[in-house]
């Protein structure tokens, strides 16, 4: 077999494998768009649900999801970045830092329903936040912490050593060095992790099930201690719990959720490539 033929075969196999990955995604998207697009309207996006969710819009769920995601990020990003800074810049390779790293890896593999139960136990019951945006955000925040810490760690580790050396050699303190010579250059990676976390937090149902999500609440939350509707749970409810909901409403809701998550991921990709073009070391 000639080298060229071998290359052709290998190339074809790779192409097929890629198609195999992409096709289902396109298929799912296609179905959702085909069946759901007709439901999308200004009213659908921005009005309250009516008549036991069979009519009206999904605005409280959209807004609720945005609140939850925002809350999760406000909680998880500062905490995650600080943890990553500690692990990369301060801790030496001792049993404690190894334990923390191991914990983070394991946390990433915990099923989301376990986070839900954890949130119920800690935030709803123990801290008495009740089923509320606060509890839900914190639960989602904890769920996305591993993603954020891991990507922040990788981002920090990819900042060349000599940035730190030079900065310290100019008499900058350790913290000044991190603040001015390391963090700015790790920002794209940190942002990417943040947006991946955003996407995950927006899409998960189980963590918000017991901690915040309302079955049917046709008004907007007034404070962080209020319950709220949220898109993933709303989708679950109208798909399985309430009979007589038009198909295009169900798929329309899915389309909104999917678009939200895809937009967030797209933002991550754009940000990353923007920053990548700028960095040249």
């Amino acid at each position: 077999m000639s080298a060229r033929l071998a290359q052709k075969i290998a190339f074809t196999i790779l192409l097929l494998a890629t198609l195999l990955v992409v096709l289902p995604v396109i298929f799912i998207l296609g179905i959702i768009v085909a069946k759901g697009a007709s439901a999308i309207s200004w009213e659908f996006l921005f009005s309250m649900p009516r008549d036991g969710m069979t009519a009206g819009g999904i605005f409280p769920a959209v807004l609720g999801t945005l609140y939850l995601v925002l809350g999760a990020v406000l909680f998880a990003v500062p905490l995650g970045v600080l943890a990553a800074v500690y692990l990369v810049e301060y801790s030496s390779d001792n049993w404690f830092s190894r334990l923390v790293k191991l914990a983070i890896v394991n946390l990433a593999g915990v099923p989301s329903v376990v986070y839900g139960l954890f949130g119920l136990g800690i935030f709803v019951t123990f801290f008495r936040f009740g089923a509320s945006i606060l509890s839900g955000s914190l639960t989602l925040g904890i769920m996305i912490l591993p993603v954020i810490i891991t990507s922040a760690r990788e981002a920090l580790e990819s900042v060349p050593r000599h940035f730190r050396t030079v900065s310290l050699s100019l008499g900058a303190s350790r913290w000044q060095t991190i603040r001015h010579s390391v963090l700015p250059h790790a920002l794209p990676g940190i942002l990417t992790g943040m947006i991946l976390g955003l996407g995950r937090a927006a899409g998960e149902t189980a963590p918000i099930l017991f901690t915040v999500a309302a079955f049917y609440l046709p008004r907007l939350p007034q404070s962080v201690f209020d319950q709220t509707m949220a898109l993933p749970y709303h989708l679950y409810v109208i798909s399985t719990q309430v009979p007589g909901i038009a198909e295009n409403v169900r798929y329309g809701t899915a389309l909104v959720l999917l678009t939200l998550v895809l937009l967030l991921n797209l933002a991550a990709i754009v940000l990353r490539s923007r920053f990548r073009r700028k960095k040249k070391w």
Partner: protein
Amino acid sequence: MSMSGIAIATQRLDLFYGDFQALTAVDLQVPEREVTALIGPSGCGKSTLLRVFNRMNDLIDGVRVSGQVLIGGKDIYAVDADLLRLREKVGMVFQRPNPFPLSVFENITFGLAVHQLAPRREYDMIVEKALRSVLLWDDLKDKLQRSALGLSLEQQQRLCIARVLPLKPQVLLMDEPCSALDPIATLHIEELMQKLKQEYTIVIVTHNMQQAARASDRTGFMYLGKLVEFGLTAKIFTQPAQELTENYISGRFG
């Protein structure tokens, strides 16, 4: 500075990396406003000795230093020594040109900002002065906001020298500053050192014997962590006192 025109003085300086002794009983006196070259075969401890002077060795786990190191008459390893201030006053230029991926301007003001040495309105003036000192002003005066990574290697290395000048250092440490540069650029940096030594004490590590001979006033020859011989460059290169030194500079090993 200190009484006798000595910028750096070490006494019975030992340094260990864990169990490995990298410097043994180094006694060295570096005069002010001269270029002092450190030469010797690879691994003899030149970089280690240089990093003693701004305590960059402190960053390495398991380093132990004993003996005394005076810079400007002050014991830099004293318990109450101010590490950040030491590094402000003892600047370092590295082997590979390593500007930050920032603009030319920001590279030069980095140290100023860190030490809050001057109000922002003086930055323009200080940047110009620093660039003039390294003879870059005419080339770069219209490119101050460009990324420093777009400069030629020689320009980058000059910029790295300019970056430490706003801190008004007393000593400039240079660890093989020309090893990434071509011969012409190397000569330019050597000329620059002659100019800078009117204001600063310079200690340079080099593998290039001609460079030591051309550019330095005094030379120290190191071998296996010991300072074998130290003296006027002219004397070291013509009538070394030690046979080891003679063997090294005549190229019989190294």
